[in-house]
C-alpha cells in the first residue's frame, strides 16, 4: 500500500489525478471511474474514504472544464439544470437503495449499463440522428464546434429527464459521477451533439458531486491529503483535457468513449466476482 504522506507518493497521486482529469474533460465524465480504483487498490483506502476524495476530484474536474466550456458557449445550462433536477432526486433515491443492495449486485448493474453504453457508442450508425421535434422537444441555445451560436432542437426532454433519474440513482449506487450514462442519453436519445452533450454533462456532474461531497465534508470523512492531491491533479488535467478536446474528432471521441466504457465494465465485473 502506498502512503501519500510521503512527498513522492503525494506527487504520484497528483500525476495520476492529472490523467483522470484529462479523461474526464475529454469524455464528459467526472473521473471517479479512475479515482476510486486508484485510491482503493493502490493506496488501500476503504470505499467510503476513496469515494469522498474522488467526489472532491470530480468537482475539480467538472469546475475546471465546465468553466472553459461555458465561456465558449458549448454546454446548455438550461438543459443541464432541467436534467439535473431529476438526476439529483434519483441520486438521493439511489443512495438510499444502495444500503439495501449487495455490493456484487451493484457492480453487476453498473457493468451492464457500461456494456450497453459502450455498444451503443461503438456501433450506432453515423452518430446521432437529426432531431425530430414534437411535443416533448424544446429549443435551446448553444455554440457549435464551428463557433456558430444558435437555437437547436432537443428531443425527448421529459423522457430524457426520466432516464437521468435512473442515471442519478445508478451513479449514487456505484459511486461515480454518472457522465458515462448521461452523455449517451443526451447524444443518442435526445439528439444533442456529442461535444455539447459532454460539456453539458461536465456542468451537471459538478452539482451532483457537490451533493455527495458536502455531506462527507460536513461529517469529517474527507482525508485532506488524499482529497487535495486528487483535486489539484484533476483540476490541472481537466484544464489540459479541454484544450485537447478542441482538436479531437467527434467520431473518434465516441469510439474512445466506448473503449473506456468496456474497460470500466470489465473492472466492475471483476469486482463483482470478488477478484478486485
Amino acid at each position, binding site marked *: 500500500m502506498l502512503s501519500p504522506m510521503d512527498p513522492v507518493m503525494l506527487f504520484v497521486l497528483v500525476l495520476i489525478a492529472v490523467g483522470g482529469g484529462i479523461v474526464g474533460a475529454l469524455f464528459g465524465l467526472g473521473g471517479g471511474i479512475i479515482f476510486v480504483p486508484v485510491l482503493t487498490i493502490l493506496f488501500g483506502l476503504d470505499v467510503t474514504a476513496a469515494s469522498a476524495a474522488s467526489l472532491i476530484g470530480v468537482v475539480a474536474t467538472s469546475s475546471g472544464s465546465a*468553466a*472553459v466550456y461555458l*465561456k465558449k*458557449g458549448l454546454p446548455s445550462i*438550461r438543459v443541464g439544470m432541467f436534467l439535473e433536477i431529476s438526476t439529483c432526486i434519483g441520486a*438521493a433515491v439511489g443512495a*438510499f437503495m444502495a444500503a439495501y443492495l449487495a455490493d456484487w449486485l451493484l457492480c453487476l448493474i453498473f457493468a451492464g449499463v457500461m456494456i450497453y453504453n459502450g455498444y451503443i457508442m461503438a456501433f450506432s450508425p453515423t452518430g446521432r440522428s437529426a432531431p425530430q421535434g414534437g411535443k416533448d422537444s424544446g429549443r435551446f441555445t448553444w455554440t457549435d464546434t464551428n463557433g456558430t451560436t444558435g437555437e437547436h432542437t432537443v428531443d425527448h426532454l421529459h423522457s430524457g429527464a426520466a432516464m437521468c433519474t435512473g442515471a442519478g440513482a445508478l451513479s449514487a449506487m456505484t459511486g461515480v459521477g454518472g457522465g458515462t450514462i448521461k452523455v449517451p442519453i443526451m447524444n443518442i436519445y435526445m439528439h444533442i451533439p456529442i461535444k455539447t452533450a459532454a460539456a453539458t454533462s461536465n456542468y451537471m456532474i459538478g452539482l451532483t458531486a457537490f*451533493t455527495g461531497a458536502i455531506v462527507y465534508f460536513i461529517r469529517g470523512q474527507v482525508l*485532506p491529503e488524499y482529497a487535495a492531491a486528487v483535486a489539484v491533479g484533476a483540476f490541472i488535467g481537466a484544464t489540459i483535457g479541454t484544450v485537447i478536446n478542441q482538436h479531437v474528432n467527434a467520431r473518434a471521441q465516441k469510439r474512445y468513449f466506448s473503449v473506456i466504457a468496456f474497460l470500466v465494465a470489465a473492472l466492475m465485473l471483476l469486482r463483482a466476482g470478488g477478484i478486485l
Partner: protein
Amino acid sequence: MTAGPPENRRAAVALQYASYAGVAVMAVGLVLIAAGVGETVALIGIGLLIIGPVLGLAAVLVTLIQEKDWKWAGTAAVLAAVLAVTMLLSYFF
C-alpha cells in the same frame, strides 16, 4: 471569447474564481502537508472548491431573474431546493 447565453458567462466566472481559489489554497496545503502540517489549510481549499458549482447555480439564478425569464429562473430555484433537501436528508439519514 464568450459565446452562448449570458448566464453561461456568469456561471463560468463563479466556477473559475471558486476553483482557482480552492486549488491554490489546496496546493499550499499539500506543500505544508508534505512538511508535516497543513491539513486545515487543505480542508479550507476543499471547502472553497466544492462550493463552486453552487455559486455557479446562484449566478445563473440571479441572471435569469434579472432577465425576467421566470420559467428558467423557476427551474434553477427548483434545482437549488432539490440540492438543499438532498443535503439535509443525507445529513440526517
